[in-house]
């Protein structure tokens, strides 16, 4: 078959990165990529069940478990971006300009500020839970709202309710014109967000297009793919940083003010 099915998180799809990359891949390769945009949890599930040929996700712990269980093979880091804490411009909890995400979270809990949580076990949600743990608080304070929805929805809710939330920078940049929010905290190494591409284990299912999947994965981490990722701009801002083969370097977290 010449179609390859890629399950990926909505962040890569909605930011327009894949619409930018994939046509360039399809030009030089005899494959047609069908993108299935879902959450990280579901993307890994689709991979486990053999319903797609490869996944592109950002949840290091879950991805490790995925590979350890032999559901997936040949994991490669492709790129990274980072998370930011955003909030209303009047900043009732006084976070603005902070650099320490853990501290910021502790403050939010102390102040009982409105905070919209993804609450959907996504990569972002896992990161958020980790931060609460680091800050030493159980997130059950007065303003805490677990929304159980995608990043875009949660940003909209935060804007509507004038609350804080943790978001990946891609979605933030894509949506910030439509939001009444501002960045409060960014640049902390704890806010780092790496993406991996993983092939679905061909030994588990017949008829997977592993060849095509591998071609795509290898192209993504090739020089050509990596250059294109670095060149991608959304609203004139670089969103993703190619990182194939790199040992992830926390200090390279971007600042929007760059």
């Amino acid at each position, binding site marked *: 078959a010449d179609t390859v099915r890629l399950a990926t998180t909505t962040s890569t799809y909605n930011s327009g990165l894949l619409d930018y990359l994939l046509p360039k891949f399809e030009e030089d390769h005899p494959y047609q990529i069908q993108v299935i945009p879902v959450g990280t949890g579901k993307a890994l599930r689709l991979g486990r069940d053999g319903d797609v040929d490869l996944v592109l996700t950002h949840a290091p712990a879950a991805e490790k478990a995925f590979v350890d269980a032999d559901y997936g093979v040949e994991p490669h880091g492709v790129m990274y971006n980072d998370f930011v804490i955003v909030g209303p411009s009047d900043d009732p909890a006084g976070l603005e300009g902070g650099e320490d995400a853990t501290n910021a979270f502790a403050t939010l809990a102390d102040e009982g500020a409105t905070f919209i949580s993804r609450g959907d076990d996504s990569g972002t949600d896992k990161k958020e839970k980790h931060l609460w743990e680091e800050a030493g608080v159980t997130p059950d304070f007065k303003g805490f*709202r677990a929304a159980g929805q995608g990043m875009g929805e949660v940003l909209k809710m935060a804007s*509507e309710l004038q609350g804080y939330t943790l978001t990946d920078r891609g979605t933030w940049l894509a949506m910030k014109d439509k939001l009444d929010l501002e960045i409060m905290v960014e640049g902390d190494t704890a806010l780092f967000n790496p993406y991996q591409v993983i092939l679905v284990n061909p030994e588990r299912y017949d008829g997977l297009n592993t060849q095509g999947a591998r071609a795509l994965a290898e192209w993504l981490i090739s020089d050509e793919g990596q250059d294109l990722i670095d060149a991608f701009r959304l609203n004139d801002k670089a969103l993703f940083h190619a990182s194939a083969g790199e040992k992830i370097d926390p200090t390279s977290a971007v600042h929007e003010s760059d």
Partner: protein
Amino acid sequence: MHELMNTAREALHLLISLDPALWEIIGVSFRVSLTAILVALPPALLIALLLARVAFPGRWFAISLVNTFMAVPTVVVGLVLFMLLSRSGPLGELRLLFTQRAMIIGQILLAMPVLTAMLHSTLQSIDQRAWETARQLGAGWWQSLWVLIREARFGVIAAVLAAFGRIIAEVGSAVMIGGNIEHFTRTITTAIALETLKGEFAQGLALGLVLLLLALVLNVLLGVMRGRGHQTVSV
């Protein structure tokens, strides 16, 4: 197959364990949808009666319009309400977004076309003599309407069940204007959507089964209420 079996078992377990978190979202679901049906029913009945019994220019177009509104996607209803209720929207001052009230409004909008279309076709089929007889015997307009409803009770119940089925099962508008906030606006369907998003299919299915079980209980109760009366006596 094995997974489906497990899921069924898990659903039953969830139900009988009386998990409070589960009952909370069941409560929200039923409260919102039942309220919406109750609010939507009277105007839907009036419009249906108007369409069925009163000849006015453009009536058939009005009927087509009602039928068209049945095809409004739930997300579109969600979207429009969202834009209206948003802080930057014309009704933002009401601060209704992400509340159960907003969800009720959304479900009313969704239930109305289904209710109206089905009630119209039911009232339409009721013998014209029923209305005439009631009016002549001194029934007021409202009383005659009530008699008509009683005479058409099977159809009315069918309409209510269809509309209820539609809104208790819908997720597009509930998630959009309710926000799926835990303890506040999380319903069975938004919870199912969340579990699915997480890839926790079994959990999602289990919730679905819970919803079906409850809907079955409701339907059987109504079925018992309306009696077996299914034989139409032919003249």
